[in-house]
């Protein structure tokens, strides 16, 4: 049984690595009306491609793919962590109102232009700040009801704050001049298309460090899945570690959401799939979710580019939900018991 499990983990990791590689190459091969061959992509990557292919692969596609790898990994890992911290299968990076906070920031940046800061910089910055503030607000609301924060209170506070902010964003979208409305709407559906190396330089270190820190906490998360009292009995300082993980998660989500908009379902579906295959042990689920999240987001990104050429590039949030939701429903119907919730 033990060896069986090791084999299963290795097999899963290898299959995922192959899938990730395939979709990295496919996503890099997109050239609008046509698709480059894998050989052309490879040549361009190692600097031997034609001038046109070099621009397509390295300038047009590569930043998007790299941002996708970080965003997908970050969202999937924070999803796994949130579900363990809250012992709640529905917990996602967005349950604390993080995405709505970021949306508000992005919408405000569009509506209230600051002349000396360019919008491309202002929008992610404001999204980042408001995302973080929302998390602090939700946390302090749930803290005010008692010294020991209850998971249920935290989730309820998150849902309440989230719906309030979402309403404000809808209001802003409604009253926004029509030429700016599109920007807010597209942003709220998510896109990797605005990736630049400057944005990656900002987002990638935050996401990478955050993932590393969360992987290091996976043993403590296992204990916390048994319940707060169990974890404390095993020497886990639950209050401190939970707050710490919430701060790290909101940093990672803020970094992801600020530059790619709200991309749903990755944080929900990816950890569940791997819990189904590998069991609940976070020491396996969290690292595997890193590869799984990246592979899934690149697959969706590729599909969003090629599925409906008539309409151009679809918002990636639409694709992740259209693929993710039915798959999740399938899991819910067939494997409910095995997931363990």
């Amino acid at each position, binding site marked *: *049984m033990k060896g069986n499990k090791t084999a299963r983990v290795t097999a899963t990791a290898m299959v995922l690595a192959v899938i990730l590689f395939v979709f990295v190459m496919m996503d890099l091969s997109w050239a609008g009306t046509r698709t480059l061959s894998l050989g052309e992509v490879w040549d361009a990557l190692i600097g031997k491609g034609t001038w046109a292919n070099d621009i397509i692969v390295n300038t047009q596609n590569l930043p998007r793919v790299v941002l996708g790898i970080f965003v997908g990994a970050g969202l999937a890992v924070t999803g796994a962590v949130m579900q363990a911290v809250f*012992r709640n299968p529905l917990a996602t990076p967005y349950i604390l109102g993080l995405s709505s906070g970021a949306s508000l920031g992005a919408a405000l940046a569009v509506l209230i232009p600051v002349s000396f800061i360019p919008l491309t910089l202002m929008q992610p910055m404001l999204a980042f700040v408001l995302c973080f503030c929302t998390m602090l607000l939700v946390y302090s609301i749930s803290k005010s009801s008692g010294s020991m924060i209850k998971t249920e209170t935290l989730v309820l506070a998150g849902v309440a704050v989230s719906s309030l902010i979402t309403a404000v964003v809808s209001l802003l979208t409604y009253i926004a001049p029509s030429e700016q409305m599109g920007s807010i709407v597209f942003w709220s559906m998510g896109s990797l298309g605005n990736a630049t190396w400057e944005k990656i330089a900002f987002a990638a270190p935050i996401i990478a460090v955050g993932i590393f820190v969360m*992987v*290091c*906490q*996976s*043993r*403590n998360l*296992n*204990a916390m*899945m*048994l*319940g707060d*009292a*169990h974890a*404390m*009995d*095993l*020497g*886990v*300082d639950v209050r401190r570690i939970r707050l710490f993980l919430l701060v790290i998660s909101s940093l990672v989500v803020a970094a992801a959401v600020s530059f790619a908009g709200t991309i749903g379902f990755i944080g929900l579906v990816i950890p569940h799939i791997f819990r189904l295959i590998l*069991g*609940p*042990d976070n020491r396996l689920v969290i690292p595997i979710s890193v590869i799984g999240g990246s592979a899934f987001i690149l697959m969706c990104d590729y599909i969003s580019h090629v599925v409906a050429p008539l309409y151009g590039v679809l918002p990636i949030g639409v694709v992740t939900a259209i693929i993710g939701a039915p798959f999740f429903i399938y899991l819910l119907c067939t494997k409910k018991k*095995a997931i*363990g*919730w």
Partner: protein
Amino acid sequence: MVNAMEVKDLSYSYAGSNVLEDICLTVGKGEILGILGPNGGGKTTLLKNLNKNLSPRCGCVLVDGTDIADLSKKAIASKVAVVPQTNEVNFSFTVREIVEMGRMPFQESFRGSSTSDSEIVDRALEQTGLTGMQERLINTMSGGERQRVIIARAIAQTPQILLMDEPTLHLDISKQFDSLNLVTKLARDNGMTVVIVSHDLAMAARYCDRIIMIHNHRIHAMGRPEEVLTPENMRTVFNVDADLFFDEKIGKNTVILHDSYNGN
């Protein structure tokens, strides 16, 4: 006798009302101490104060002569293990994975288990008779089996002190004996100190070296079972008509409950 744990003038209040007042007690090394009292009387609260899951309003708890307020949760967990009252687990961890968590206080945050860790886990599984069940999923087991797993986890923690909250609550009668016999053996063989919180008078009379009765948030009586489990004390604290007997067949004390005093 060397003291494994000492509680000095401990008071605890919750939402403005006192739950525990001026609790003073010592537990000797290798001793089995029973803390008895009616439900809602603050027994579990006292137990949670003993490993800093709750912090007292005043007073202190010393383990090995050190105030646990000055120790990290991890340092406390390397000395004090707990078998809590509720053991519902929703996740499909295997028995072995749960028992391995007992080694957490001794491990760095991102390092695999060492060989000695897995030997300790093997022994804990063997002592609790779980070796053959170690790959079973915890969320498919009965309450009694789950408690056995949690006891195994506590043993894997190689604690100096084991705290048990109502250990007989979820168990079949025969399993109650098995669990407590095992714990008694560990106390006698390894010098492990055991503190059991319970309202089960007969169980306490049989297994505990010393008993503390909690009544109205304070210690009402403290001493050997035959000193504490008097008809008067059991009437005052539990409102029952009961007697302590020496069961000659097993050579141990037991309590016979005759009736309650309610309505008489």
